C-alpha cells in the first residue's frame, strides 16, 4: 500500500504544489503540460459527474480507479483541489486530504505572510511537513507494494 504522488491546485488552475514518492512511469510530457492535463481532466469530470448524476449530488466526484492505481480528489469551497494517487488497497481518504488542506496548506501557506497566494508554494516548511505527514500515514509504506 503506498502513495504515488500528490498535486495541489488553486481555483485558477495554478499548480501550487506537486510531490511524488513512488512513481515508476512518467507521463512523457513536460510538468506544465501534465498539470494542465490534470486540471483540465478534473474540471471536465466534475461537471460531467454533476450533470449525469441520476440522484441529487452530495459530495460530487470523489475518486476514480484503474487496474493499477486510484486517484483521490478533494475540493474546498474556495476552489483548492487536493489530488492524490495511491495504489488500489487504499479506501476513502477524504479526511486525510482535508487534513492536508486545513492543517498544512492553511496553516503554513495562507498564514505565512511571505507566501503569495496564487503562486507555487516556495515554503520549505510546508514541503517538509507535508512529506513527514504523508510518510506517517498508515497506508504509506517505504517500499512500493
Amino acid at each position, binding site marked *: 500500500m503506498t502513495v504515488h504522488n500528490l498535486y495541489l491546485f488553486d481555483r485558477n488552475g495554478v499548480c501550487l504544489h506537486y510531490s511524488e514518492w513512488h512513481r515508476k512511469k512518467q507521463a512523457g510530457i513536460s510538468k506544465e503540460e501534465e498539470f494542465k492535463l490534470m486540471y483540465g481532466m478534473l474540471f471536465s469530470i466534475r461537471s460531467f459527474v454533476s450533470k449525469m448524476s441520476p440522484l441529487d449530488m452530495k459530495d460530487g466526484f470523489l475518486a476514480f480507479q484503474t487496474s493499477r492505481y486510484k486517484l483521490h480528489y478533494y475540493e474546498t469551497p474556495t476552489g483548492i483541489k487536493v489530488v492524490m494517487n495511491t495504489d488500489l488497497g487504499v479506501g476513502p481518504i477524504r479526511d486525510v486530504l482535508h487534513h492536508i488542506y486545513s492543517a498544512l496548506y492553511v*496553516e*503554513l501557506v495562507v*498564514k*505565512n*505572510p*511571505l507566501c503569495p497566494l496564487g503562486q507555487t508554494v516556495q*515554503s*520549505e*516548511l510546508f514541503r*517538509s511537513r507535508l512529506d513527514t505527514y504523508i510518510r506517517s500515514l498508515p497506508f504509506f509504506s517505504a517500499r512500493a507494494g
Partner: protein
Amino acid sequence: MVDAVLFEFLHTEMVAELWAHDSDPDPGPGGQKTSLLVLEGMGFRVGQALGERLPREMLAFREELDVLKFLCKDLWGAVFQKQMDSLRTNHQGTYVLQDSSFPLLVRMGSGLQYLEEAPKFLAFTCGLLRGTLSTLGIKSLVTASVAALPACKFQVVIQRP
C-alpha cells in the same frame, strides 16, 4: 478569548502595506529603516495601552525583574497565548528574552529560509515591549534578533538617566 488569527492576519497586512509603500522612493536600507521605525512606533503605542490595561491586581512590582517576568508571562500570554521560553539577565540592566517558537514566525519556516525577512515581523513586537515597559515606568531600548526560525531573542536594555 478572541481568535489569535485575527491579530496575525492584521499584523501581516501592516508589514506588507508599509513595505509596499516604501519600495518606490527609497529602495535602499534607509527606506527600510523608516518602515521598521513606523512599525516599532505602532507597537510602542499599543504596548503603552496594554501596560495600563493588563495588570489586573495591584501587582507590587518590587523590582525590575518582576516587571520583566510580567512581560514574559502575562503580556506574552495575552497577546500570543503562550509564555516566553526563557529570560536571562546580567543584573545590570540588560535582559534577553528568548522565544523558541515565536507565533508570528512559526508559520514561515523552520530553519534558514526567509531569515532576511524575519526582522520586519519583529519590529512591532519590539515596540510592544518598549511601550509596556514605558507605562510601567521603565525607559528601555528593545532590539530583536533571529538566528534560525522560529526562535528569536528580544534584548531589552534599561536606560538609566
